């Protein structure tokens, strides 16, 4: 066992303090993305590999909140995992760091065998575009764009031509059952329909991981069940890995595994279903 992987494995079980340094020399390597010869501590079946994550937010002068205090977790390729925990337990911060929207103060994040916690700027944007799809609680569709354009926009950001992006958007909207609502603006769609558009948008760049931040939080029970069923179907059909942050036990129960967080650390890795 290498020194690095030993330390990582130790932190996983909370035996050792997480690394305080973020190994700045790594950031200077090509594109900041370090390919992983062999996943530290675990096998390649883990698409997400997080060790000793720390993140402190400054709220005001001399007023800090430690959102993550050395959190570690692994997600298997093709898994559909739920993260539960009280407000302020660090779920969203964890999700933002895995999603390459935020960077940790300390700890390691590996996505598909590549270390990403040291990546910054444009390279991080590229990793995000390639690996990650997001689904939000408030749907977060762009109000001035119709369903097709909301979906195709993400593909265009990733460099697809307009015609290719539109073609793919149409296919995905069919997949989520919105074939007859493609030209509707978000304001003309129900909450469940809007979230389906958001799911299609999350899928458009063929991400390996889809992160959901309370994806059913704004929906009623029936619609919520429909959305979870849709996510499950996509998970089964495409093998895309899903990580859903949720307060809803029913949503969590529908997942393969429930990971629980409290006070900025993972306290329960959950039973593999």
């Amino acid at each position, binding site marked *: 066992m290498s020194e690095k992987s030993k330390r990582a494995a130790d932190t996983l079980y909370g035996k050792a303090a997480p690394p305080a340094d973020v190994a700045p020399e790594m950031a200077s390597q090509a594109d900041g993305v370090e390919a992983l010869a062999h996943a530290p501590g675990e096998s390649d079946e883990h698409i997400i590999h997080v060790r000793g994550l720390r993140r402190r937010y400054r709220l005001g002068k001399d007023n800090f909140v430690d959102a993550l205090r050395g959190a570690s977790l692994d997600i298997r390729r093709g898994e559909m995992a739920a993260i539960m925990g009280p407000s302020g337990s660090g779920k969203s911060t964890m999700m*933002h760091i895995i999603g390459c929207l*935020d960077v940790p103060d300390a700890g390691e994040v590996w996505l598909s065998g590549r270390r990403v916690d040291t990546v910054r700027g444009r390279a991080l944007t590229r990793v*995000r575009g390639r690996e990650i799809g997001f689904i939000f609680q408030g749907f*977060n569709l*762009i*109000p*001035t764009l119709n369903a097709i354009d909301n979906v195709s926009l993400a593909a265009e950001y990733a460099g697809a031509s307009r015609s290719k992006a539109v073609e793919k958007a149409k296919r995905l909207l069919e997949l989520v059952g919105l074939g007859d609502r493609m030209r509707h603006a978000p304001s003309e769609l129900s909450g469940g329909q809007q979230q389906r558009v958001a799911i299609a948008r999350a899928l458009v760049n063929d991400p390996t991981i889809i992160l959901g931040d309370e994806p059913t939080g704004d929906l009623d029970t029936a619609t919520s069940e429909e959305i979870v069923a849709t996510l499950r179907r996509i998970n089964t059909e495409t093998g895309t890995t899903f990580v859903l942050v949720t307060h809803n036990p029913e949503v969590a129960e529908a997942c393969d595994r429930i990971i629980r967080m409290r006070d900025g650390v993972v306290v329960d890795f959950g039973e593999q279903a």
Partner: protein
Amino acid sequence: MRLLRNIFRRKLRAFLTIFGIAIGVFSLVVMGGIAEKLTLLVDGGVIYYQGKVIVSPDSGITGLSTGVLSTNLRSDLEKIDGVARASAQVSGLLDKEPSSVNFGTIPSFGASDGRERGYETFIVTYSQGRELTNVDNGKVTVGADLVKKLDAAVGGTVTIRDKKYTVVGIADKTLTAPDSSVVMTMHDAREIVFDDLPAEAKTSTAKDTIVSSYVLYLDKGVAPAAVAARIKRHITGVRAVTPEDFEQQIKQPLQIFTSVIYAIGAISLLVGGLSVINTMTMSVSERTREIGVRKAIGASDAQIMSQFVAESGVIGLIGGIAGLLLGLMIASAGNAAGEASGNALFLVTPRLMIGSVLFAVVLGVVSGLYPAYHAASLNPVQALRYE
């Protein structure tokens, strides 16, 4: 289309911002239209004066003298070293008391003795009818800008100083002095000039020797300034104006004038630019969450930046086109009104049109840079939390 939808999310605000730019471009087009017109007039003058010396009574204004010279002077002038030919001109103001304030050239009448033929390179052509000859007493040709004012048509008559003249030709537009002048015979012009003389001058002046000014055509390679200096030495009571004098007296002040005009236009457009900055900054802050979403779904900083810069550029473009159309409307309305008095004030040239709209677009883009940079550098996590 997407850009337009984003811009017109807040319709009133978008409209007001575009209106601000439009007013700026409007003022640039209208002010610039005046400047272009004057510049063209003066450029025409520069071409006309090239290689000539104009001799006029010492008291008079170039070309439009109130005092008079005499035909006797011609042989003296042609004796001056370097002078090839002297052509006598009789001219005056079309209206005894010119109405209102005039920009550009004042409507005038003029006649020449025909000795400029073969020497003059500034040739006026005719859109209708024919050129005037020296036996055409009682007949005139009319400059393009005076057609409306005088209600002139070939074969019809026009009234000048209470006398009727038959129109035999209407000149093509030259965009300079001849557009606002009536050409008549020496005899007819002398009648008017003589009538205008003060009573005491009438007794000492022979009507048929009156000359308002001489145009001197020079031998090849002779400097106008050298000829002017010789005239000053040998002939008294006259003023010799060279092309250099014209440049100094007219062109340089005009350049200052046009710079001031353009500066005023540009300043009003800059004010419009400030409102674009304001609008875009507000738009960015309203759309903070959306920017977070765009980043989350894979937009790079450069893509966010270019989106907002493009939006503000389009605001500039729409405002520019609106302002240009408004300016063209006012300029053509102004010219239509001005034609009645023989004076077209505005000349909106293609370079002015393109320049004004381009300036508005560049201004829009530049004004959008800071808000766009601010949008691009937003932290995605904070932007997503923004309500």
